[in-house]
């Protein structure tokens, strides 16, 4: 626990736009200078789209969030601190692949409406 506190915390943001009813697949990599990914959370630009949206996430080729997980469970509410809200994971960063499949299935949006999703990866850099 003590070790965690001495490490430097960093944030990586993945941003993409989702249209109503669409499935969006993001493929990218974690930053090379980050050593480990310690948490993940996300925010939607339109929280009305939370109802019915699901996602699936892989980090370093490990499925950390299984298919059909509701986005609402990982969404950052305004009344929670980042520490509390980050979904705890512990995977290698260092340019490892990130894959996110985001499915919108919301009824509560206007047709052809779209919104932005920001996925935050809470990373750590080891102190040398």
């Amino acid at each position: 626990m003590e070790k965690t506190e001495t490490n430097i915390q960093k944030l990586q943001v993945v941003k993409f736009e989702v249209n109503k009813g669409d499935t969006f697949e993001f493929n990218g990599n974690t930053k090379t200078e980050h050593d480990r990914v310690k948490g993940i959370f996300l925010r939607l630009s339109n929280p009305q789209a939370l109802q019915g949206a699901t996602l699936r996430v892989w980090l370093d080729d490990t499925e950390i969030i299984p298919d059909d997980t509701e986005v609402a469970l990982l969404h950052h509410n305004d009344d929670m601190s980042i520490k509390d809200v980050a979904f705890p994971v512990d995977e290698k960063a260092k340019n490892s692949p990130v894959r996110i499949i985001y499915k919108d299935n919301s009824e509560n949006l206007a047709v052809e409406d779209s919104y932005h999703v920001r996925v935050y990866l809470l990373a750590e850099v080891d102190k040398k």
Partner: protein
Amino acid sequence: MKRYFVITHQPKDNGHLNVQDLLPASCKLITGIAVNATVKQSGQLEDVTENLSFPQALISGLLKSESITDLFYSYLRTRSSEAESKEFFESDILPEIIQVLSSGITYSCLDITEQQELSDCIAELFSTQFTDYLYNEVEIFPKGQYMSDLSFADLIAQQTLLFTYIKREDIFLRTKQVYKQPESYECGNISLLVNGNSFLLRDYMLTANRNVRHMSKEIMPFHEPLDVNSSIHTVFKSNKNSDGRTLTLRIYIEYEHE
């Protein structure tokens, strides 16, 4: 390391459910469970009036623009009678104030028609009420006679801002349509059994469409060691409140993974 597994079921026609699912082979210890139910239904639209933020800095800025400040010179306050001053104000100064404010106050969130409505609303308000306000409530004519040009110009600018602020709830608003969040309701009881004998949940009341909180707050902690290839049995007793809408049950299983 914690891992998660999701089981999704959609009971048809408001019916009951009695199914068995195999847990992942690596799942040897269940550490928590969360259950959530959602009903997909068309959202209803409702009109909501939303206040726009009051553009105080913008109005102060506009009032400092040259086209306005040049108008507030002493001519207005040195007229021999109040009626004459008022007439001059209405014919020369007021149209300029209206023009600057209605064309200067723009919101990027409004479309062209909404913006036009806002400008019209500002013009309408100022042309009908502002003169009366200045001359009757602020009593600008008697006050102005003992003021310097500069402080007189300042007074009019301040009163313009104040007048706009008092009337902000009539002007700075927009009507928009938002979708209503479906009402939450109790949809039935759920029981979860491991390997057909050990209860994880027993007749747990499920509420559909409730506001789901973050995963860490949703998980109910358990400590349930398992054999390899264990299965989980889901028994859902619907209370027939769903009226034919499709219910989606999601069971999240948190387990320890080496």
